[in-house]
């Protein structure tokens, strides 16, 4: 009996974990190329869910149209934020000083601005859900039960990850983005427009978070505070050492599974604290992440 429960927990964990992995990926690609921790990452998730709700519920459009449109809108918002705000903050930055404080303040400001904007609409007064992406009919995999929708969420997440991987690996722009994140100065020398690449990566990350928001909406409830899911993505990113993309994906899935198992075997109250404990423990004992090699030493 316990065995089945564990399997069930793992299976459900894989589904939510794959979405956490998407959100964590959006944090990591931004961090890798801009050294900014996006504290507004969760609010892009929330924004995605609300934008999708607008098209799905109020305009009655089908998912197949809504997901790309939502991604596009998020892309526009994310890249605009980089262009209008971050680019200027960076432009004024004096060498030697940490730009971290200014960047964190800017993204925290953005997260509050998003939350505040959504709260102005009366839709946000009640917690809502999106219509199911797929039928919620149960599917039996051995002794484990998942809904068709769960399986769709998992498959779509994996597909998005593969798409992202292919983009970074095989397209010219994707390779330019990787070059930028590895060494911005060298990238400038070979003619890559580094500034535009930063803007592009913010757009892509925002789109990724928004799609994750649409996927996670049937699982979490849609509310202005749903951005709190970002803490799971932070934990996933930390497991991956904030740089190792594969590690981050594994981290997201591990967290989804941990969350489900803690809920099943410890208590539902303990779910909320699990990611913080993961973050604190990993940072105390292996700050480079579970998958990173030795901590890189930065020269002055």
């Amino acid at each position: 009996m316990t065995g089945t429960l564990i399997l069930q927990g793992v299976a459900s964990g894989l589904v939510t974990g794959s979405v956490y992995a998407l959100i964590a990926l959006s944090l990591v690609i931004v961090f890798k190329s801009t050294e900014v921790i996006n504290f507004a990452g969760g609010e892009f998730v929330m924004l995605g869910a609300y934008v999708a709700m607008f098209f799905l519920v109020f305009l009655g459009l089908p998912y197949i149209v809504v997901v790309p449109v939502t991604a596009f809108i998020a892309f526009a918002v994310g890249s605009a934020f980089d262009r209008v705000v971050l680019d200027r903050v960076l432009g004024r930055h004096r060498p030697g000083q940490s730009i971290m404080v200014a960047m964190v303040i800017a993204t925290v400001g953005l997260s509050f601005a998003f939350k505040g904007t959504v709260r102005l609409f009366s839709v946000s007064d009640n917690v809502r859900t999106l219509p199911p992406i797929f039928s919620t009919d149960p599917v039996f995999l051995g002794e484990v039960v998942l809904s068709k929708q769960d399986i769709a969420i998992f498959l779509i997440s994996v597909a998005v990850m593969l798409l992202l991987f292919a983009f970074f690996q095989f397209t010219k722009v994707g390779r330019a983005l990787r070059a930028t994140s590895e060494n911005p100065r060298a990238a400038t020398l070979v003619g890559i427009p580094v500034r535009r690449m930063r803007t592009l990566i913010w757009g892509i990350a925002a789109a990724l978070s928004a799609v994750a928001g649409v996927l996670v909406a049937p699982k979490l409830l849609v509310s202005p505070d749903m951005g709190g899911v970002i803490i799971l993505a932070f934990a996933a990113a930390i497991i991956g050492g904030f740089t190792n993309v594969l590690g981050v994906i594994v981290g997201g899935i591990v967290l989804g599974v941990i969350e489900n198992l803690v809920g099943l075997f410890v208590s539902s109250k303990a779910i909320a604290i699990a990611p913080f404990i993961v973050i604190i423990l990993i940072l105390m004992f292996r700050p480079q992440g579970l998958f990173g090699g030795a901590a890189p030493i930065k020269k002055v």
Partner: protein
Amino acid sequence: MNAIDRRWWLGGVGLIVLAAGLYLGAPIYVLYVANLLMTYAVLAIGLDILLGRAGQFAFAHIAFYGIGIYTTALITNNTGLPVFVGIAAGGLLAGLVGVIIAIPATRLRDVYLALSTFAFAEAAQWVFNNWDSVTKGPNGLRISPAKLFGHTITDDRQAFFLVLSITLAVIAATVLMNRSKLGRAMSAIGQSEHVAMASGIGVQRVKVTAFAISAVYAGIAGGMFTLYQSFIHPDSLGFDLIVLILTMVVVGGLGTLPGVILGVLLLGLMPEVLRNLREWQELIYGLILILAILFMPRGIWGLITERRQAWQARRVAARPSPVQDET
């Protein structure tokens, strides 16, 4: 008496007149707001020691504030000790937890320091919410009126002078600390860790000390809170509060004491001014943060000092130079 001395005297006399006026004449609600603002001031000054001076981006401040509130409240509720004992205990406990957190956390890169302290603050809020036997969890904890030498402090007017004297003591301690060797070491680390290390400053030790002082301030602010509030709920110790304090520090001017106090006054009074626009508050705070970091990265105080310097430079330039006259 030189100009600086005169400024101090004028400021001191002005402050006494203002405080006495508030105490005697102000309606009770105004005194409540004044008490709240002074509590925020102590929180903001503490955060600024860590963030503005030592340049360490830590988000744990509200956890220490909560520790201070709960410690003082529990001592007041369960013993007849004078409230200063409770406040001191709250400050010390917060400082102790601060040191325990700081020793591993300050070894981390800036990014990870922000994340780990953020996680710690969230975990602390979870503890306040779930340690039912001590904090009464989500029901909130009722705080009995504070006792001091046989008196019981029952309203904001009676609490006012206590809160004011603690605030002034904290400001004075901060001014002294900033001028001390420790304060200069912190500034050095904030400017450049490598240079500070090369100059023989024990970077790790100073960072932990800054962390501890900042935590003690937050714990004391928690104790101040119990002087005029009769109830604490864990929901009020969340991320929103740290963002409010952060906004005060950033808008006022990171690393400048007068700037921080100015920021506390401006942003602390804003909810009173915008009382009819409650649903706009979050959006307004967000926009203020973004605009502040875009257009006045050194805060309002930075703008003021820049203006003053420019004005002085112009005055010097306008004065006919004797050397030039001769040539």
